[in-house]
């Protein structure tokens, strides 16, 4: 029992460590590419999946999206959205790398603004992408479970009526909890969908 308690206590610490690692990887990758968008456009063009103007636009936008997502993971009010975006980004990156590997393209992944070219380098990048997708997927699942748990506990704390729910304008369990709302309100808080 004591062992179980200890593992429950460790859960948030492990999740926090995972978020910090994910944020550090994406902020670093974003900054490295934001410094040289022309080089990154060449890297995207090397995949031969998109016309060059689209590669140029992506080279200007993707690094900042990665930085925004990396920072968003650290802030509770944007965590859910940032983790969802990172999960999909990792899947897209993994798909692009896998397609380049299968087509035997002799390119580098370009994930951190350069890097070695060739099949071995692409294989390593693919493994890294899959691991990052897994990490962001697990963290997304943990975050969703945490939100639901806090939502439920907020409802239980309100007694048998079960009429309360955390307001969507703040993190569940935060200062903005609404107590004593109607059942209809619980199903869909008036400010649901806000940050």
């Amino acid at each position, binding site marked *: 029992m004591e062992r179980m308690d200890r593992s429950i206590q460790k859960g948030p610490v492990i999740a926090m460590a995972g978020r910090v690692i994910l944020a550090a990887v994406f902020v670093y990758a974003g900054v490295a590419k934001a*410094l040289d968008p022309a080089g990154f456009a060449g890297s995207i063009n090397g995949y031969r999946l998109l016309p060059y103007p689209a590669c140029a636009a992506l080279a200007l936008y993707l690094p900042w999206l990665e930085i925004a*997502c990396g920072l968003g993971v650290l802030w509770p009010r944007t965590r859910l959205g940032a983790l969802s975006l990172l999960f999909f980004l990792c899947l897209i990156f993994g798909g692009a790398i896998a397609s380049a590997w299968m087509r035997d393209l002799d390119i580098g992944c370009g994930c951190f603004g350069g890097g070695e070219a060739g099949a071995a380098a692409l294989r390593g990048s693919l493994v890294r992408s899959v691991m990052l997708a897994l990490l962001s997927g697990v963290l997304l699942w943990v975050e969703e479970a945490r939100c639901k748990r806090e939502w439920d506990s907020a409802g239980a704390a309100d007694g048998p009526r079960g009429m309360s729910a955390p307001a969507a304008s703040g993190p569940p369990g935060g200062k903005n909890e609404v107590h004593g709302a109607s059942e209809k309100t619980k199903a869909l808080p008036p400010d649901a969908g806000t940050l």
Partner: protein
Amino acid sequence: MMRNVSSILWRRGALQAGLILLAALAPAVLAAWCHPKRPAWSDDRARVDEVEWTAVRQWRSPVLMVDARSAAAFEKGHIPGALRLGAGQGDEGILAVARAWQPGAKVVVYCDSPRCDAAQSAARRLRQELGLGDVLVLKGGWSAWIEASRKGR
């Protein structure tokens, strides 16, 4: 009830994702406007011309060969006299080319095969960072050079 919570969380996540997507747009637009290393919008401007090895052999001007392949591939073998400028290399590769380049010399960059793009990236880098005008990419790369060497051309 659980479905309601899930749908609210889903909506909240989608809204947050939308805001993050929008937030990233502002610096991207700024970078497109004034970043010193912003990409060209047209492939024609960005693409470096290619040259056949048979043509390179006929040049009378000095030629500086630059190898854009991996360090391992370079160690295994390279065109005699070639300098390495890999994608993962820092400034030392560029500085080595700058030191070896003589006025009037043409620079020819190569990578493994027609499927590789590393030579294009390295050639663009040489044009942008060293301001070299006469930079070309070897058509067919290392494979074409090996083939030409076998045929004694």
